[in-house]
């Protein structure tokens, strides 16, 4: 099985080579694109199949040493429950994205080469069983995705985004590598089995926590290390951003979970959960709020990703805390919530980014203020989008709700950790999570309502056509998955049981333990008292809906009639305005206005500038809304200034005459001699 996975990774690398080779032969782009994306599709499905087989059949986990690796030892790979769970997500999301890309006009080599490499890097990270292989895959993934972001590098904005992106990726590496070093200790072996055998203690453990959180957080986009994330999405194409958002952050979170929950051993204290809970809650709030301010659809979705990453991190934090407080079932509940949400979010965010890609391809823009009314031109895409936003807004009975239900149940049980600080933190986190969920719903309404509903806002947008057949299939595949995942979360949790055991400890029941009869159809929390029956809810909703429709239509038989918009009695727009009066439609900034005033000005430094002309002045007035993320201001800019200051000072050393350089050498020699004399005199 591992051999198969490795073969898949090798094939992906080969595909990248093929794509690179096709760059030399002009006119082969179409075939190369088909080969690459087709290959990725097949391999992605293969990954998902292997992972599902591993999870479902409980195949044994045998680490395998590879015949190659770093010069100091062999690379080791293994597939345990946690790896398999994330591999499942990788396979499903990768297959969807590849399928979508097959339908798109062929990409250039700049995209074709790194695309399979990114998949390979992620797969390698997931199946790695030693520190080096893990980080090798991790950084390959980062570098490949940088190439994808930088593919369209003619625009300075994209270049800046790519640079910042890579910077944070490097930061992540620079934090994670010492974390593994600290974990290994003087013994030096980086194999996971060896690391597990000697969990860190004291300040080492604290340092591992800090470094791991910073490292994985920088890659996963946890606040305040998220500054790179939204701009990176402005550049990437639909399938690429789907893959990045759907899977890449999950891989970062996988590293977080692997490092802190698995490799650090089960004996860490309960307070370890606090930093994760705080970071998760704050990220959720910030991400969701920013999603309401963004003016373009892909950054909007990216911000929503920050929010969901926050949820998952929060779940991991709760797992740590519950485990530290010896509350095994609750730890399993929180771990299950996180894992399920990771999968759910991976799928529905893939779907939404593919929708965004389809919209971009069809309407030629991703600015909300140039789109609108697409539901008429693109009904299938709109339907898929509706499913996606429903899941993203965590509406029952779709996928997002099940995992959020578990997460909230875990949060509501947080008071069982008998520490008043933790209790208050969890209570506050509950409020923040609820707020973030509501904000996400608002953002999703904004996304769907402004892009698909209403009237077109630009001629290009009005000329949009439905996505081609393959793209539509690629949208319907994850959309169907979202529905299925929402209906059968219990089955999924049963499937995730091996992964939950990795996180929550070996002897914990899963939250889907079938206490009431139909196994796997019920989510259970809080010692069996709280239940969520998604299938029952769905059936109930369907039943009521059909009945209601039937009753109402029997009573009211009249066919609907079409008429001009009433619009509160406002007069019709003049005929030269083909799309109606654009000012009477809510715009991207306008829809965000209440939230901007309520929360944005406090948290994001949002402000509005309204410039009204004095009476009689025929020139148009102006309105502009700004929302700036404060973190670059108080995190990146001071650091950059500090760096430049030090660099300027260091420059003085360079600007020396030969005599000055000689003096340096001489001074060094004299200092060393004096040091020697002092050392020996002691």
């Amino acid at each position, binding site marked *: 099985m591992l051999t198969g996975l490795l073969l898949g990774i090798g094939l992906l690398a080969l595909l990248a080579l093929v794509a690179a080779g096709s760059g030399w032969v002009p006119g082969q782009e179409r075939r190369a694109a088909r080969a690459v994306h087709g290959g990725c599709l097949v391999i992605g499905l293969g990954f998902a199949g292997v992972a599902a087989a591993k999870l479902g059949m409980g195949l044994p986990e045998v680490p395998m040493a590879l015949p*190659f*690796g*770093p*010069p*100091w030892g062999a*690379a080791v790979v293994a597939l345990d429950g946690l790896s398999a769970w994330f591999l499942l997500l990788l396979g499903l999301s990768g297959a969807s994205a590849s399928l979508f890309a097959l339908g798109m006009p062929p990409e250039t080599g700049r995209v074709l080469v790194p695309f399979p490499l990114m998949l390979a890097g992620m797969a390698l990270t997931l199946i790695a069983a030693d*520190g*080096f292989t893990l*980080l*090798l895959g991790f*950084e*390959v993934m980062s*570098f490949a995705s940088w190439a994808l972001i*930088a593919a369209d*590098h*003619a625009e*300075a904005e994209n*270049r800046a985004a*790519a*640079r910042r992106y890579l*910077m944070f990726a*490097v*930061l992540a590496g*620079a*934090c994670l*590598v*010492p*974390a*593994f*070093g*600290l974990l*290994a*200790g*003087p*013994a*030096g072996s*980086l194999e996971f089995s060896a690391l597990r055998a000697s969990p860190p203690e004291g300040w080492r453990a604290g340092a591992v926590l800090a470094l791991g959180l910073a490292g994985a957080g920088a890659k996963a986009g946890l606040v305040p290390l998220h500054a790179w994330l939204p701009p990176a999405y402005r550049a990437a194409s639909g399938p690429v951003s789907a893959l990045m958002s759907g899977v890449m952050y999950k891989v970062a979170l996988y590293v977080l979970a692997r490092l802190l929950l698995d490799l650090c051993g089960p004996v860490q204290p309960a307070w370890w959960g606090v930093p994760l809970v705080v970071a998760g809650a704050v990220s959720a709030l910030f991400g969701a709020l920013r999603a309401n301010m963004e003016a373009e659809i892909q950054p909007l979705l990216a911000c929503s990703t920050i929010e969901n990453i926050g949820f998952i991190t929060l779940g991991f934090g709760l797992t740590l805390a519950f485990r530290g407080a010896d509350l095994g079932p609750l730890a399993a509940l929180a771990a299950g919530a996180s894992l399920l949400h990771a999968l759910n979010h991976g799928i529905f965010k893939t779907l939404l980014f593919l929708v965004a890609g389809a919209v971009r391809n069809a309407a030629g823009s991703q600015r909300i203020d140039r789109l609108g009314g697409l539901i008429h031109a693109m009904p299938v895409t709109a339907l898929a989008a509706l499913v996606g936003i429903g899941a993203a807004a965590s509406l029952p009975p779709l996928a997002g709700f099940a995992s959020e239900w578990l997460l909230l149940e875990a949060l509501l049980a947080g008071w069982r950790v008998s520490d008043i600080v933790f209790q208050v933190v969890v209570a506050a986190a509950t409020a923040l999570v609820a707020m973030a969920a509501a904000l996400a719903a608002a953002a999703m309404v904004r996304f769907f309502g402004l892009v698909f509903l209403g009237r077109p806002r630009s001629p290009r947008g009005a000329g949009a056509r439905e996505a081609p057949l393959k793209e539509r299939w690629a949208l319907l595949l994850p959309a169907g998955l979202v529905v299925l995942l929402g209906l059968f979360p219990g089955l999924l949790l049963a499937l995730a049981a091996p992964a939950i055991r990795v996180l929550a400890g070996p002897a914990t029941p899963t939250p889907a333990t079938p206490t009431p009869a139909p196994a796997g159809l019920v989510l259970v929390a809080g010692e069996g008292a709280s239940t969520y029956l998604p299938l029952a809810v769905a059936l109930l909703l369907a039943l009521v809906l059909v009945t209601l429709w039937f009753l109402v239509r029997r009573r009211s038989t009249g066919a609907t009639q079409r008429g001009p918009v009433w619009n509160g009695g406002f007069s019709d727009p003049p005929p030269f305005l083909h799309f109606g009066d654009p000012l009477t439609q809510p715009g991207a900034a306008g829809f965000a206005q209440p939230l901007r005033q309520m929360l944005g000005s406090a948290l994001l430094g949002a402000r509005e500038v309204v410039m009204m002309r004095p009476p009689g002045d025929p020139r148009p007035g102006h309105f502009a809304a700004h929302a700036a993320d404060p973190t670059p201001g108080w995190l990146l800019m001071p650091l950059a200034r500090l*760096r*430049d200051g*030090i*660099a*300027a000072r*260091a*420059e003085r*050393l*360079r600007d020396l005459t*030969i005599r*000055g*350089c*000689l003096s*340096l*050498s001489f*001074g*060094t*020699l004299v200092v*060393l*001699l004096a040091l*020697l004399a002092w*050392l*020996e005199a002691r």
Partner: protein
Amino acid sequence: MPFDFPLPSFPLPWAVVFLPWAGALLLAFLPRERQATLANIGVSAAGFLLALALLAHPGGIQGWTHVDALNTPLVVLSFLIGLTTAVFSHGAVGAERFDALRLRAYHVAFQVFMGAQALALLADNMGVMWVAIEIATMASVLMVAVHGTPPAIEAAWKLFILCGVGITLALFGTIILYLAAQPLVGHGDSGLSWTVLRGLAEQADPGVLNLAFVFLLVGYGTKAGLVPLHSWLPDAEAEGPIAISAVLSGLLLNAALHAVLRAKAIVGAHDGAVAPGRFLLAFGLASLLLAAFALWRRRDARRFFAWSSIEHMGLAAIAFGLGGVAGNLAGLLHMLGHSLCKSAVFFGLGAAVRLRGSQKTADIAGLCASHPGLGWALAIAIAAVAGLPPFSLFASEFLLLTEVAARHAWLILPLGIGLLTATVAKLHILQALCLGDPTPDAPRDAASGGATGADWFTRDWFTLGPVWLHLALALLLGAALPGPLAMLLGQAARIPG
């Protein structure tokens, strides 16, 4: 070793040294450019083959030389880079506009340098090693100054004076080293033999050893470009033919650091002496931090990568300063990887500088758009130098960081800051050089002998071939080293202690 060398008494190390020198003699009499460059390739290839034979050498002392696991890979790599540099230079030398005399001087100096480099690595006798490094220095001065322009002479003069002083100090250290051994071995050559000294160090006077180490460190450290002894390096690598930059940063620095390492091994063998690792650690950290910040102020692409050499030497010094098998392995791997990747960058950069007619960063933008083959090759090479996977610098930096974290956790902070600052600076330059809107190519006049657009394309592979070869080797080194070679490196890591 897979098989015994057929003639154990055959002085293979000396053959490796003298072949390039004989080649230098030959090249001194070849006036025509094409002949000379081809002959240069031939000599380098022969040298490389001989060096490969070292892999099959049983090892051990042979007169003033010795072959062990530590110097064998360095020698082989040196000759490999020598060969690729010769290949690159075949495509590039036309653009340097040499007259006949300079062409000969250039080739002679190159081969003399190669021989001296080999001798510096293979020498067992510390005195011989010193002589070899001195010869290499003088050859490199000639190579840097070969253009005779004021900046070149300025740089060469700086190199000469600073390294001259450094080398003088190193000789003083060598003499003191003998002073330590003299009471134990009596008269004779063996008093300067590294192997003997290493064995006897435990009984020697620690005070003398300390003194010797300080002088050797400052002396050879100057050549290795460790801060604050580095001042000659950026200018020397930024002037002269660009092939020389590849050689200087790829080979000369390694030889010098190797010498420091040998000195450290001797002193470290004595428990009563000062811990030499601490000194290396301090120098390494200073190099890393200063270079990391200095990188942000560079506007000249070659100087940028020269500073990056300082940074990488600093990293290797930190690794060797940590010591232990893992630390030494990290350092060795870093040296090897840095040589491969940095020379690849200089090859690519050389082509770019030739095309754009300037080595200012601002004049070399957008290579990926104007020359995709070159642009992406250079981009990947820079990424490799920045320590991104899957190339070997990633592996060595990984090992170094984990080692530091495991053994001297407080070092993570300065090391992490330096590494991060430097890497981000390199990513900046990567994007500045390779991405974005291309700047126009320099106009070419037919008389210059420079390549026209089409001409450049035919010579393309003299640039891209070496670049890709180096990258492929760096990839192998980092992620899939064949077993015997990995064993060799493992043995090598045990040598410095």
